[in-house]
């Protein structure tokens, strides 16, 4: 009886297992295997050698690019968190009627009905040397010369990241906040807490799991990205994703695979560290 029930359970889980195996485990395994292969200018050959990793860890470019990737992730995290928390707080605690809450929440998601690339590229005419931003600032007399750092700079890269990924912060934080019992806020107020004290001592601690889920989304998305950095920096800036995409463009698959493995490990370590701080299991 117990045996047959076990086998039924395995059978029921089998389709998902097959999908994950075919589309997650096997590809990552392949990347791992290829990362030990060798390459010449015109061919790649199966082997087991550590050349790719040795080159990666000995090159100063690697460290610079990894540093840039962390920098983008950190700055984007700071902005998406502050904007996302504020928006979620407003929706959850200041908007009283539920229909209004839903309407405003849907409004937040409207930009996401278009593609990432289009939303990204639409910044270019706005930020360019003769773009709307510069022309407006000049006509207001704020500046005399067009600002050069608006486009094709770290500024534009981070701006695009924040624009693209803030919703990934809003949704989990809003979701957690909606589960906070409103009478807790009244209880804090009854105990003499000011608005800021209530925010800091009650709402922020109870929102931590949502903040953590949003953080994981944003950090993994930014660290794995290559197209935003390429478009918004005009190919002048690099992160790890671009390193991998360049290798692929040059058909240096083994080297690209090695970089991908290192990036994957880095992201997993970052998430591992984050999860040590907050238990998100009850939110899932």
């Amino acid at each position, binding site marked *: 009886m117990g045996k047959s029930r076990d086998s039924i359970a395995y059978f029921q889980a089998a389709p998902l297992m097959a999908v994950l195996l075919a589309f997650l485990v096997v590809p990552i395994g392949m990347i791992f295997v290829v990362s030990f292969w060798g390459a010449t200018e015109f061919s790649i050959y199966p082997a087991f050698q550590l050349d790719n990793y040795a080159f990666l860890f000995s090159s100063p470019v690697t460290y610079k690019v990894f540093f840039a990737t962390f920098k983008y992730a950190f700055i984007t995290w700071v902005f998406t968190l502050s904007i996302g928390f504020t928006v979620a707080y407003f929706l959850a605690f200041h908007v009283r009627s539920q229909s209004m809450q839903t309407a405003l929440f849907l409004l937040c998601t409207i930009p996401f009905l278009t593609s990432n690339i289009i939303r990204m590229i639409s910044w270019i005419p706005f930020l360019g040397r003769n773009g709307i931003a510069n022309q407006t600032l000049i006509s207001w007399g704020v500046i005399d010369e067009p600002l050069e750092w608006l486009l094709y700079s770290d500024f534009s890269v981070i701006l695009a990241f924040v624009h693209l990924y803030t919703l990934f912060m809003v949704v989990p934080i809003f979701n957690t906040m909606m589960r906070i019992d409103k009478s807790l806020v009244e*209880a804090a107020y009854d105990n003499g807490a000011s608005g800021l004290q209530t925010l800091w001592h009650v709402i922020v601690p109870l929102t931590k799991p949502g903040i953590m889920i949003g953080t994981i989304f944003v950090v993994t998305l930014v660290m794995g990205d290559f197209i935003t950095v390429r478009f918004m920096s005009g190919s002048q800036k690099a992160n790890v994703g671009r390193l991998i995409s360049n290798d692929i463009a040059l058909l240096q698959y083994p080297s690209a695979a090695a970089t991908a493995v290192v990036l994957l490990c880095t992201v997993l370590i970052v998430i591992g560290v984050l999860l040590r701080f907050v238990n998100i299991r009850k939110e899932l």
Partner: protein
Amino acid sequence: MGMNGGNDLQLVNLTKKYGGTLAVDKIDYHFKAGTYVCLLGPSGCGKSSTLRMIAGHESVTDGSIVLAGSDVTHLPPAKRGTAMMFQNYALFPHLSVRDNVAFSLQMKGVDKATRDAKSNELLELVDMTSFADRLPAQLSGGQQQRVALARALITQPKVLLLDEPLSALDPFLRIRMRAELKKLQRELGITFIHVTHGQDEALALGDELVVMNNAVIEQAGSARDVWSAPKTEFVARFMGGHNVISLDGGKAALRADDVSLGDQGLNATVTTVEYQGGNVAVTARIEAGEEVLALVPEAAFFQFPKNPGDTVNLAWDEGRLHRLQ
């Protein structure tokens, strides 16, 4: 803490409107210091709005609230000298029991050693010392309620406001906790205002009962007065244990335990018989069509048992009829 002669609470012309709906309609009441008052009524009668206005969690549309001689109508909750215990206790789930109790001191900037000491003192009062390091989720309902009490009392309120404090507990625990509430109120000597929709609870706890209906106070007075001398049909029916009988142009209340089954009296047909332990509740329809409830002592009933459909004679002492307004 002794007598608090000066800590009376007065509601003057207190009114609450939500948009066009009147929730509380110009009520006046004087809560004497140190009494246990139960605010009683069906849901939507305005009792919770009244309590929340006293607490400062609901704005006052009109009228005022005066506590210990000063007008607190527009003061923030923590500045009034009141403290509230919430229906679901509203304990902070991320803080330990000790930190929950010490929360208001922490907000005032009291240092950790002092507030922990004070918090332990309150936990001892409610007999929860051994649970100080637990989280609220690790406590039972009754234990959570004690913590909520300690948290409310640490602010040293003149008036403690309890919003249906026993409704989340199972019936057995409810009876135990109400004894504890009463004992605590006696010890502290402060005013407790307890909102409930259960008349048993109100009778058991309240020195004074304030019965509300349709946004106004229907009747107020000592528990015994309200139960034994209901002024209106609503109060008589709501408090239970009474029959309301039409009587030459007016209505009168008749206690169910004053009705006896015998050989003489009004002809009636038994509709239901309910065994209640000490008493048996017999409902019978008299010829005028009204149903009359008789609470008959168990021993007397089983001498001459009745079944639904049987004919009985209902009798009562005319002097026990109580005219209603």
